[in-house]
């Protein structure tokens, strides 16, 4: 009887601690950050029309690191991250990095208006049937894929891309650590 309470307390701890640890782990994770099986695999190819009516294929960018950004004019997180992309584009386009936007579930007209108002001169392509989004396993925009100069996916960013992610990933792909 004397050991009943400590024993119960011990059992309660044995049950509660892993549960609390599991919850703590779960709450710290971004539920939209689904690990991509494409990392270190060849990037799915595409040949699509830009919102300006030109044709763009991923293969034509071989030899350059590519920042592939899935976005839409209606997506508030895309609006928030846009200045960051503009800043990174100014910095890295001179170093051979190509930026490509893939318009997700949006019209070319709305996408053009968005870029006209907010800037951003890199090409954006339409994705009829969302086939490219499916090929890349896009879960929730904005999502940004970093493709190295050999056409291999090196990183996937879920949600707004940050300056830290951009500098770390592009630095890595350009052959520097930062």
């Amino acid at each position, binding site marked *: 009887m004397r050991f009943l309470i400590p024993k119960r307390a011990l059992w309660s701890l044995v049950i509660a601690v892993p549960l609390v640890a599991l919850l703590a782990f779960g709450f710290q994770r971004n539920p939209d950050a689904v690990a991509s099986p494409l990392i270190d695999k060849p990037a799915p190819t595409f040949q699509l029309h830009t919102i300006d009516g030109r044709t763009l294929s991923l293969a034509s960018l071989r030899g350059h690191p590519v920042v592939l950004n899935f976005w839409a004019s209606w997506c508030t997180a895309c609006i928030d991250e846009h200045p960051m992309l503009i800043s990174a584009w100014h910095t890295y386009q001179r170093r051979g990095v190509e930026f490509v936007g893939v318009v997700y579930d949006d019209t070319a007209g709305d996408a053009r208006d968005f870029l006209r108002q907010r800037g951003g001169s890199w090409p954006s392509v339409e994705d009829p049937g969302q086939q490219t989004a499916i090929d890349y*396993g896009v879960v929730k925009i904005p999502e940004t894929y970093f493709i190295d100069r050999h056409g291999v996916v090196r990183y996937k960013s879920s949600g707004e891309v940050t300056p830290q992610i951009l500098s770390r990933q592009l630095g890595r792909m350009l052959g520097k650590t930062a």
Partner: protein
Amino acid sequence: MRRYSGWIAIGWLLLVCGVALVAYGNKPPKQSLDDRVRAVAQQLRCPQCNGESVADSPASISTSIRADIRRRLLAGQSDDQIKQYFVSRYGDWILLSPPQSGIGNVAWLAPPLLVLGGVGLLLTLVTDWRRRGKGVAPAGSEGYLERVRAELAADSFAE
């Protein structure tokens, strides 16, 4: 003849059932393309929704995925090949039921193991309670027991 009519009816019934089994039993019902699309889509998670399948979701990405499944079925791919394609793009996350291999086994084995553990715990507790119920009275209760005995004896004399 009337005596055998019941047996004849049963015989006919068995014959009809037998013929029906031979005719339809060996062949699975032929699924239409829509049924096959739905069957695959029901196993996939809608990427934009919360716990909804691609088959049930009205989201545009689910519509696109259903169209992609249809194209792949028409191109001759099997259900497993199509599921494998989606897993290769989204990971196991896209499957509504976890795979029965590797880490996915945990999700399948955990519920029955938890139920077994619960039943075991319940049995242990019940056994413990019963054992304590039959056990020796705790120290210090002798006086109380004496009173109960005396009252019971007084009752029996009163009767």
